């Protein structure tokens, strides 16, 4: 079996990059991409494809890349994944395709994510996604939310001929891709490019419309929409539930990232929505959101940024690359450390008191359960950013009669992704709880298939 080492991706210098929001990972050159593609042994029964939530034909596109058939390589990915440039950058490949790669046994997996990114970017530069689509069949469908689930659903429905309108609550499209994931991981012109592609396909975008408030699901049907896809995500921050959480200086990651990304506080002093941040910042959580918040804080000039996480290193749910990048940028991981109280003075947070944890038996998630030790430690801080998860926003649930939801707020769907309301489908984080871009995208695409079947039986 092949033991050639994996082709590393070049990164921006770790010290230099702390001062700006430019993308950290620089991507492959054509030569690097070819060298890496050559490492794929073209398995007969590729495990990587099975491990990909949308079943991208990985060995096939890699072979085409090697044969210099880059247009065809792009087409091959695009059939299953309409956002290759995005997924190549943000998918947790180590637990999906790359995790399943047979080369892992003796050496290192093929860098599938990096290759996907390379081919995706090539397609973007050459405008390969801009293709004529079926004529509009006049059947109106509505998509709620413009995150990956909504975008994928809209693209698929438009390709099937439907007259698609996306309603987005915020003033920018893209969902978490726009307001959450920072530029240094996902440059915003890539997201904008994908949205422009959808506009060119004839998808109508309407912003500032909060479905459930500005227009209810029932009113969408009154207005002639024959089916609705809800891809409203999981945008409501979860609380830590400790004393002092409402002190000044305590941010939810959503507020922090919204100020910086959506409201452009990173352009201070020009932004009208600034970000008040001191020198010493604690970030609570171990996922991508926590890593993004910590690295963003560093870029905004914080001197000392540390992460508080109640489990151990191998349990960190963030992408492996991002953990490495965070550490390279000087972010300190304080593991097995669980915040129990925020201590303030004059309504401003000053300290976080934490309990040291140890690991016990595995819990329902398969990870070892963190257990209290009775030993405490207190850190001085200027700000603390809470990044321990998000739940679905209650607006749609509270304003849609008969829509069944889980106790935690997720929308309940059947095997065809239909909700308790006929013709109303849902997918992405609003159904699964906070998950990944690729799962949301896959759910949006699959729902389009079910919506099409449904509409064929209900419209003439």
């Amino acid at each position: 079996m092949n033991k050639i080492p994996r082709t590393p991706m070049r990164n921006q210098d770790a010290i230099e990059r702390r001062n700006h929001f430019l993308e950290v990972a620089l991507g492959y050159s054509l030569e690097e991409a070819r060298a890496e593609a050559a490492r794929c042994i073209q398995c007969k029964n590729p495990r990587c494809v099975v491990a990909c939530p949308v079943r991208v034909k990985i060995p096939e596109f890699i072979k085409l890349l090697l044969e210099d058939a880059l247009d065809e390589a792009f087409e091959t990915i695009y059939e299953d994944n309409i956002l290759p440039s995005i997924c190549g950058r943000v998918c947790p490949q180590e637990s999906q395709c790359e995790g399943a790669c047979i080369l892992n046994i003796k050496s290192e997996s093929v860098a599938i994510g990096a290759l996907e990114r390379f081919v995706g970017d090539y397609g973007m530069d050459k405008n390969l996604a801009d293709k004529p689509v079926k004529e509009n069949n006049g059947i109106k469908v509505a998509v709620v939310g413009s995150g990956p689930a909504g975008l994928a659903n809209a693209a698929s429905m438009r390709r099937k001929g439907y007259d698609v309108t996306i309603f987005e609550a915020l003033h920018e499209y893209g969902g978490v891709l726009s307001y959450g994931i920072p530029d240094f991981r996902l440059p915003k012109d890539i997201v904008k490019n994908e949205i422009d592609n959808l506009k060119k396909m004839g998808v109508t975008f309407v912003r500032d419309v909060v479905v459930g408030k500005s227009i209810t699901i029932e009113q969408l049907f009154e207005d002639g929409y024959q089916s609705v896809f809800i891809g409203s995500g999981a945008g409501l921050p979860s609380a830590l539930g400790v004393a002092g959480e409402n002190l000044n200086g305590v941010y939810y990651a959503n507020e922090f990232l919204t100020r910086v990304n959506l409201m452009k506080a990173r352009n201070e002093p020009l932004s009208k929505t600034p970000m008040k941040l001191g020198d010493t910042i604690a970030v609570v959580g171990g996922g991508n959101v926590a890593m993004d918040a910590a690295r963003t804080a560093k870029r905004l000039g914080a001197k000392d940024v540390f992460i508080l996480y109640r489990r151990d290193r191998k349990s960190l749910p963030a992408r492996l690359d991002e953990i490495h990048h965070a550490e390279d940028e000087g972010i300190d991981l304080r593991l097995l450390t669980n915040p129990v109280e925020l201590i303030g003075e004059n309504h401003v947070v000053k300290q976080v008191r934490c309990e040291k944890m140890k690991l016990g038996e595995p819990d329902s998630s398969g990870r070892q359960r963190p257990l209290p030790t009775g030993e405490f430690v207190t850190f001085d801080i200027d700000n603390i950013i809470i990044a321990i998860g998000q739940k679905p926003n209650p607006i749609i649930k509270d304003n849609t009669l008969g829509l069944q939801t889980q106790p935690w707020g997720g929308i309940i769907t059947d095997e065809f992704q239909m909700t308790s309301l006929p013709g109303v489908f849902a997918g992405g984080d609003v159904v699964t709880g906070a998950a990944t871009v690729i799962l949301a995208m896959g759910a949006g695409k699959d729902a389009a298939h079910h919506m099409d079947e449904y509409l064929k039986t209900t419209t003439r």
Partner: protein
Amino acid sequence: MYDIVEKRILQNDIEWMRVRAPFVARNAQPGHFVMVRVDADGERVPLTIVDHDQTDVVIIYQKLGYTTRQLSFKQEGDTLETFQGPLGKAAHIRDKQHVIGVAGGVGSAPLLPQLKAYKEKGIRVDAILGARSQEYLILLDEYRAICDHVYITTDDGSLGQEGRVTDALKIRLETDASIDHVIAIGPAIMMKYVVEMAKSHQRSVDVSLNPIMIDGTGMCGNCRVSIAGKTFFACIDGPDFAGEAVDFDELIARQSYYKKEEHDCFLRLKDE
């Protein structure tokens, strides 16, 4: 983009604007608000829906800092970048006999649609409108049209009784036993004192909380308020709440966390 259909100057620093926004108008109810962004890199600020018809929505704003001043530069025929809503929970119109509304400053704008809703239910309404001085009082005719009595207080005595709204409220609550509910909308400190007064006179009281909001849709959590030890998001759980158990000191502190940044931003406006 949203067209400014009509604009009026109500007082030196207070303006009235009618904006074409059918998606906001369609489901608007008393208590709802909109998030407004004046231009493409503007901040998002919350303003109450004061009135609306099928297509248009009326807002009234006081020129305070950067964004409200930026808004006041806009004229009829100009457009606004974002006008999103209706947001928040509609005001809870309770089963009462006689309601007295208390407004501090521009709080009289959000109070008006609520008192109207009570009036339309056949409930008797009075109002106490307070301001620094006469030039900050607005909508007096509109209030007189629906209220049995309108009491006015000004800090400098330039109109009505010299003093605070709580002075006038005290007298009303002590002398009119038929009043069974108070609504207070205005600066947090004023609402705090109105709530204390209502409580000490055994009347129920509703308030409209005004923490700093960013998205206005339940996403950022900056608008959180503590009520009876529980946290609520004012933008989706409110902004109207029963006032009795609100932690006003926390609200006042949270409102002031960005004071310096707001001031710096305002100073830049002068340069622009």
